[in-house]
């Protein structure tokens, strides 16, 4: 029996954070601590995590000591109550934990590890939202996605660029077909219902063959997938890790004649076309909340419109006060034309 042993690979300095809300609230890699595994089992887990690096909804880092966003432990090892989420590693013959516990059965399998990591990521996001709702300051400008909506599920799936197509039956709305391979999608409900449909929590998602007759028939009325990705990005995203630390430059404009947008999206595109900016800089430049800036950047990222630059790229200058003859023209035009 081995207890209290942890996986190697440690990050350098660990900032102090509130218990249970470690990296989840910031966008840095989430910290995973594993106790009670044999050395060869740890090696297997490390290899699996390496494979899953690109596939996980959040970035995970193996650490050998607390604080942990997720602690996986065997029954013999001690549970760290400071961890954000804990999960049980089940040896052969051991019974599962309580109903809502995160269980990982030995021997380790890639998809099982992926499920546990994504479920832990969801729980951490959910807790962060709850803690932000309970916080008295800075009311949110809109409804935050709770990580269980169709938008989140689709976003996660599409980021993996699946070979198979997806059929989604959305309760109260209709059916949505998505083909990543064809980069097209279609729905049997009105275009303006896409956003509320993506916010739904009741849906059945099925993978179907890319060459199925059903898909072929539906895709005759298909639309470019950027319309779907744009809506998913604007509804979800929160603050993915990359959005918090990097700067972004627009390398291609969203087709704003087709895509639903607000005036701030036009201004944000123009700002990012002029200058690489971080989410905070963009929020300041356009005069929107950080959350809205992050969602906009997420939408651009999903549609492949932005180039990500390292955080140490030259900072955007402060927004200049009104001076030129063009200043405020966009707002005046917006009021005239109802943009």
């Amino acid at each position, binding site marked *: 029996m081995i207890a209290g042993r942890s996986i190697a690979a440690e990050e350098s300095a660990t900032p102090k954070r509130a218990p249970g809300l470690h990296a989840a609230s910031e966008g840095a890699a989430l910290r995973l601590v594993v106790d009670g595994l044999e050395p060869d089992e740890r090696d297997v887990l490390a290899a699996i995590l390496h494979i899953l690096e690109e596939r996980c909804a959040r970035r995970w880092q193996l650490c050998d000591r607390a604080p942990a966003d997720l602690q996986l432990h065997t029954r013999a090892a001690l549970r760290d109550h400071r961890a954000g989420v804990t999960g049980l590693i089940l040896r052969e013959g051991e019974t599962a934990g309580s109903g809502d516990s995160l269980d990982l059965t030995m021997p380790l399998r890639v998809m099982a590890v992926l499920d546990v990591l994504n479920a832990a990521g969801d729980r951490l996001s959910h807790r962060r939202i709850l803690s932000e709702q309970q916080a008295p300051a800075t009311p949110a400008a809109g409804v935050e996605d709770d990580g269980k909506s169709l938008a989140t599920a689709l976003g996660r799936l599409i980021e993996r660029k699946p070979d198979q197509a997806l059929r989604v039956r959305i309760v109260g709305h209709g059916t949505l077909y998505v083909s990543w391979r064809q980069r097209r999608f279609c729905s049997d409900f009105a275009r303006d219902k896409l956003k509320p449909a993506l916010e739904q929590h009741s849906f059945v998602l099925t993978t179907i063959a890319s060459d199925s007759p059903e898909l072929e028939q539906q895709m005759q009325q298909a639309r470019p997938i950027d319309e779907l990705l744009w809506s998913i990005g604007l509804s979800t995203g929160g603050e993915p890790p990359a959005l918090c630390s990097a700067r972004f430059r*627009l*390398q*291609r*404009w969203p*087709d*704003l*004649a*087709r895509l639903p*947008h607000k*005036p701030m999206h*036009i*201004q944000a*595109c*123009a*700002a990012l*076309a*002029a*200058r690489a900016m971080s989410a905070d800089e963009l929020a300041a*430049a356009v005069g929107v909340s950080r959350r809205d800036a992050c969602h906009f950047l997420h939408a651009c990222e999903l549609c492949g419109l932005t180039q990500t630059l390292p955080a140490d790229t*030259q900072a*955007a*200058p402060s*927004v*200049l006060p009104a001076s*030129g*003859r*063009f*200043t405020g*023209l*966009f707002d*005046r*035009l*917006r*009021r*005239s*034309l*109802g*943009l």
Partner: protein
Amino acid sequence: MPQEYIVLVAGPMGAGKTTAIAALSEIPVVRTEAQNTDLERNAKATTTVALDYGEITLPDGGKVRLYGVPGQERFDFMWRILEKRALGLILLIDNAAVDPLADLRHFLQSFAEIDRRGALVIGVTRCDVAMQPDADAYYAQLRQLDRMLPVFQIDGREPAQVRALLGTLVALVEARATFSDARATEGATA
């Protein structure tokens, strides 16, 4: 004192310049047309031979004056006069033309002064008639020319789509005027 801003709408014959101005203007569009003598290029019976004109009044009394410049090259003396005073250019490209990408290159070169300022947006029309070249091809062409300009697929008869083009043009100009390093870059590339 209320200010005036000139926005040019240019593009080859038949790209929908007059229609786009009509979609934006709050006054009836004033236009001068004549028999089209260049039926090889475009089969429409008549074409604009002087400026199309429309306008938008701003809340402070200022005006956005919309000038549609004729697409034929023999009128390019008008382009020269107007481009110096213009805030920017909405360039419409007919996707059903023989070589839309060549039209794009031609007009970028023709309006080099505005292009250099980056005060230019591209609306691709008649995509329902011809699906190629697609947006990827336009962006690839712009990359070759070392440009990063907005390309929207529009139907000039849809006011919301034309408004998105105009709003984008104004936001572009404002953003360039706001970020000082963008101005420096402009100067460097001039």
